[in-house]
């Protein structure tokens, strides 16, 4: 299949500098207590996360609730200020920029939320919803902005006749299309989709996923795609980062990570995915005991070791570093991979 940006499985990362480069990103929320509100601990929401997003690439971020994936989304857009670490967009460091300096950059990075309707002002017409970012950025206004809104509605599969309608007149799927149109208004290069299809019905979810992929091909967009449905993430992503307790435990090409997971946690997740129902069912999933600990009190060593069936003594003392785990720049943060190296396999650190 030779569709343009279709599938880049197992190929080397796109040449040239990545569109976004995140290095050692940390976000700790302080827990304060006592008379003087002294800090007695931190919620380690994001604890040293690194990944890159190439131009025209989709990177999927998966993990259970509390893993820090939504915090990462807000950090890379600077909707939250990172505690430390670096976020480079198109080579420019944005982690330390002031909000004023960020404003012109914001048009390049937009976000689509889970629940579009609640993020719209119910008294604004669809036209004003979409043109709001254009006017805020001083890109265009008046008839020019309206024309752009009509063009955007057409692009997302709605009609310019809908311009003067109100958000409540649309179904969930249509509202999410409007959310996408608004995000695209400023011609961004990166779109962060935070559970953007999670609330939609299956039949409509497929429409929106198709739309996102078509827009990517046509506009050369990059996506940071966050969802808890692993089949959805795998379908849309070129690469996947698996997060657990604020860290990326494994990353690599989407299919490779899900079919041949190298980290025990990824194996857990992959095993918990329901099989294709069209096989008729009857298959049971792998069930792992326990739940993810609180990020305010993470276990020492590897964050997954209390639930890991393969944990050994080193796992409870030493935080594993990302180790190479296969082609396509795969890495996994697991001491087991290190043992393989020690045992003579030709895997260099």
């Amino acid at each position, binding site marked *: *299949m030779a*569709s343009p940006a*279709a*599938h880049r*499985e197992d190929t080397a990362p796109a040449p040239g500098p990545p569109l976004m480069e995140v290095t050692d990103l940390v976000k700790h929320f302080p827990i304060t207590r006592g008379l003087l509100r002294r800090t007695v601990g931190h919620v380690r929401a994001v604890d040293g996360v690194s990944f890159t997003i190439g131009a025209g690439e989709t990177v999927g971020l998966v993990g*259970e*609730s509390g893993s820090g994936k939504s915090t990462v989304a807000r950090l890379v857009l600077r909707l939250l200020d990172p505690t430390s670490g670096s976020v480079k967009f198109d080579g420019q460091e944005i982690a330390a920029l002031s909000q004023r300096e960020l404003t012109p950059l914001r048009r390049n990075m937009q976000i689509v939320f889970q629940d579009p309707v609640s993020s719209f002002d119910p008294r604004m017409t669809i036209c004003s919803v979409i043109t709001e970012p254009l006017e805020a950025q001083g890109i265009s206004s008046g008839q020019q902005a309206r024309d752009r809104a009509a063009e955007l509605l057409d692009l997302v*599969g*709605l009609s310019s006749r809908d311009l003067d*309608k109100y958000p*409540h*007149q*649309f*179904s*969930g*799927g*249509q509202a999410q*299309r409007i959310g996408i149109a608004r995000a695209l208004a400023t011609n961004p290069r990166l779109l962060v989709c935070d559970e953007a299809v999670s609330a939609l*019905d*299956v*039949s*409509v*979810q*497929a*429409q929106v*996923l*198709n*739309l996102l*992929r*078509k827009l990517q*091909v046509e506009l050369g967009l990059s996506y940071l795609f966050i969802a*808890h449905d*692993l*089949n*959805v993430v*795998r*379908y849309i992503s070129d690469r996947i980062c698996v997060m657990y307790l604020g860290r990326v435990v494994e990353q690599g090409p989407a299919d490779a990570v*899900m079919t041949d997971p190298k980290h025990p946690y990824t194996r*857990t*997740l992959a095993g*918990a*995915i*329901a*099989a*294709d*129902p*069209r*096989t*008729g*069912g*009857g*298959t*049971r*999933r*792998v*069930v*792992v*005991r326990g*739940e*993810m600990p609180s990020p305010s009190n993470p276990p020492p060593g590897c964050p997954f070791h209390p639930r890991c069936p393969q944990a050994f003594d080193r796992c409870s003392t030493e935080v594993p570093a990302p180790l190479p785990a296969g082609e396509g720049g795969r890495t996994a943060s697991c001491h087991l991979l290190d043992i393989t190296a020690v045992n003579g396999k030709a895997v260099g650190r």
Partner: protein
Amino acid sequence: MHPQPLLEVDDLHVEFSTADGPVEAVAGVSFTVGPEETVAVVGESGSGKSVTALAVLKLLDGGRISGGQVRFDGEDLASLDNRAMRRVRGNDIAMIFQDPMTSLDPLYSIGHQIVEALRLHRPVSKKAARERAVELLEQVGMPDPRRRLASYPHQLSGGQRQRVMIAIALACSPRLLIADEPTTALDVTIEAQILELLHELQREYRTAMLLVTHDMGVVAEIADRVVVFYGGQVVEQGPTAQVLRDPQHPYTAALLAAIPHPDSAKELQLPAIPGAVPALRDMPTGCRFNPRCAMAWDDCTREVPPLYELPGGRTSRCLLHRDGGGSAVVAPPAPPLTAELAPAGPPARAPLTTQKGI
């Protein structure tokens, strides 16, 4: 099929009154659940699946059963008065809900809430009830059950709260458990734990289960039979494996095809169903699925298809079966990525968001 069903929903109609007059959320639904059987009711939002589940226990908020019967063990629940109905709830039929975060009273300890469920139907002392509560918590896999009695809901994770809900539901050993999207709000690994737990306890307690879900994966995993809802009607039902492998209604086929699965080809579009789920007030004439159906023809817009009986204890509401025999339903093929996208459908009228449970 079981000779004597435990639950028989027979031509059930449910109406909600709104500012613009009554709307029908469930329009003549029939299905059965046998003793110890697991039946999944599956559908998208607005299909009437949750409303049907709530109607069985008559817990409809703002809605009422406007026709039909709900027979439990031969007795019509729809005609019972409140007092008689209370003896059924939690005793013969128990229910667990979608959102474990808000389904427990935040001001009472979980011990209190389990004991309450027990003592409403069983003449046991508080002390004995507490012992039974510990036992129940242990059965639902709650770590340190005795100490947990004193915990409040906010001190538990979502998965643990759903375990408490299950303990409450099983307190009086009901013969039917209605589970309304019990794992939708949970993470995948927790979902797998809860489904396994439900399955185990169901066998142990010899309870039948009516599982309401939108997730075909969950259906495939634990249901014996599946009932597919669309637009307030049953469009297809039958044994799970057969329905999922060889769907007879175009909606079932299209829904199954639209789900991304591990083998979804990335160079193709997902075979989406065009348009949107119809609003309750704007149901299409004829077959309710016809505007979105790839196989629809003229008759589909005029004629309301009945439920056709098919071999193997299956039924399907599609005119393709009119001339007898199985239909030639095929899932629409996945179009290439560059193909035209399925249309989003016309803007709906104001969706009925004011009523709960639709």
